[in-house]
């Protein structure tokens, strides 16, 4: 059974179309992450699923029920906002039980369910407090609690960790992953943070300019990006792109010993894509190119070396193990893992 189905969803503001026909099937219990740069349409898509934003055309189904024109409260969804959206004048317990109280649920049941949820999220000791008395992480837990208590078909998370500091974000990320495992709920999660996307998702949906660029498992998107945009968006530091040419499948680039790399479909102007972790300092005389180290960033477990080359105007980023000492100004022989080399046609499609 499909938990959520989007069919040819379009959204326009006046004459301006921002979502250009999105199709997606989400299975029950799946953790789907919408990812993409600011303004790509991921949040608009989430808001259309929630019903807070109207769909211009297309069909949204939740648990096989058409909810395209249904009121947000009738869609069996729950949403967690970036700003937490907690009522400042209500205690934690009142915030969590807000929906139940509106629906005139008996007091005993409200209390029982609030306690259950608080227990799940380990916030029982905070129930009588007000939002202003909570830390960012605790507030986010309360917001999640308000979502859980609705027992929805689909959870919608709109950049829920953006307001937290780096350390807390990692912790909350872990908690959300645990929660997903425990509840087995379907989750649609919007973020612009590709680390969140890679670590949390069963499948990632990459948005750009109102269309889906690619849908797939995080590792598939990382290893086999459909195009240059996806390749550049996923992975940190991002992939190095180098302009080159190809003639009948043979790649040519002055200063880069790459003639042996073949792509049958490649012809004319192409772009090579090399991830920083797929370059290494060559131990032998035979290397792919020589590069001068422009800058080194020490990250502790590893370093990032920015390399000047004769064939790329932008410096190339290379990941270097911390056991190897690299200094600014060094000339390095660099090898590239051929099997992990990406080639993109002029339009950006992966070859």
């Amino acid at each position, binding site marked *: 059974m499909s938990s959520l189905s989007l069919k040819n969803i379009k959204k326009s503001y006046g004459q301006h179309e921002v979502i250009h026909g999105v199709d997606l099937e989400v299975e029950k219990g799946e953790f789907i992450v919408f990812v993409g740069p600011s303004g790509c349409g991921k949040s608009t898509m989430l808001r259309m699923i*929630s019903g807070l934003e109207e769909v211009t055309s297309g069909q949204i189904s939740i648990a096989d029920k058409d909810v395209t024109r249904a009121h*947000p409260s009738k869609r069996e969804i*729950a949403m967690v906002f970036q*700003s937490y959206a907690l*009522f400042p004048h209500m205690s934690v317990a009142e915030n969590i039980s*807000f929906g139940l109280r*509106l*629906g005139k649920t008996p007091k005993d049941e409200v209390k029982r369910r609030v306690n259950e949820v608080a227990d799940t999220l380990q916030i029982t000791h905070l129930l009588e407090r007000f939002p202003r008395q909570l830390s960012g992480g605790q507030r986010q837990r309360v917001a999640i609690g308000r979502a859980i208590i609705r027992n929805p078909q689909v959870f919608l998370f709109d950049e829920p960790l953006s307001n937290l500091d780096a350390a807390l974000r990692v912790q909350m990320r872990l908690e959300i992953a645990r929660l997903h495992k425990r509840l087995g709920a379907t989750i649609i999660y919007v973020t612009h943070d590709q680390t969140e996307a890679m670590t949390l998702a069963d499948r990632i949906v990459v948005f750009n300019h109102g269309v889906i660029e690619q849908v797939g498992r995080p590792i598939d998107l990382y290893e086999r990006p459909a195009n240059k945009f996806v390749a550049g968006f996923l992975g940190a530091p991002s992939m190095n792109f180098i302009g080159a040419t190809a003639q009948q499948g043979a790649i040519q680039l002055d200063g880069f010993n790459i003639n042996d790399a073949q792509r049958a479909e490649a012809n004319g102007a192409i772009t090579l894509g090399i991830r920083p972790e797929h370059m290494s300092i060559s131990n032998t005389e035979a290397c792919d190119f020589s590069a001068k180290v422009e800058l080194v960033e020490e990250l502790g477990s590893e370093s990032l070396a920015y390399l000047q080359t004769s064939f790329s105007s932008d410096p190339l980023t290379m990941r270097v193990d911390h056991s190897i000492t690299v200094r600014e100004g060094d000339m390095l022989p660099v090898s590239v893992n051929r099997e992990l080399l990406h080639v993109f046609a002029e339009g950006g499609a992966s070859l």
Partner: protein
Amino acid sequence: MNQSNTFWRVALLALPLSVFALIIIWPLLSSFYYGFTNWNGFSDTYDFVGFENFGKLFSDRLFMSAAINTIIWMAIAVVLPTVLGLSLALLIDSHVPGGPIFKTIFYLPICLSAVVVGQVWVWIYQPDWGLLNSIIEYVTNDRFNYAWLAKPDSALYSVIVAWSWQATGLSMVIYLAGLTAIPGDLLEVCELEGATTWQRIRHVILPLLTPATVVVVALSVINSLKGFDILYIMTGGGPFNSSDTLAMHMYNESFKKYLMGYGSAISVVLFLVALTIIRLYFKQLKKVDEIYG
């Protein structure tokens, strides 16, 4: 550097402070001073009478009725402009057609002086051809020429309605600002949770408008204590002192009966009442700030 800073601080503060002292502090202290005298307002000599003026307040029938009228005014001032201003703000905020035009129209009375508003309402209440009686005649299809401002039963309330008409615009604007400050996602939570319009107003909007309500109520109460100019134009406190307020009574005693000492004592009482209310207001504001700030 520090010394010249201090010099400029003192120099820049000196001008506004001296103006403030001259037009606020000096008259205030003078009122306190004259409250203990029997000065008539113009003669060179007067005697100190101690607390006699203040004692007289308790036996002054007119003072008592003015105090009661002020309390009535205050009570209605808390309810009428608050409820009307809130209702109008909610209506305009719900994007009714022509909202911005109505906003301007409702705000317009604020821009008028109380004298103009008073005169407009004198015409509205005019028994023979006033707007109010004309409408009543039109609706009931019967002759109606009740003299709203000339009857002791209705004079005070008629003035309060006119005053509230002017005050409503200000409450509306304060509430509109309050509504704008309510985060949109809180209202979206209401939508997701299936709250009805009434539930949204009752459980979310009204509590979140508490800071605005505190300001509106405080301003209404403080302004109602000053209820003088519009009253002066519309009834002058009459008929038979039925619409006298403390401010009006103070004016009459000081400038009509030339009992400046006694009038000053009334003004001291008014000042102390206002001070208490302002203190309560700031206390409440602090509490509200702790919750919503």
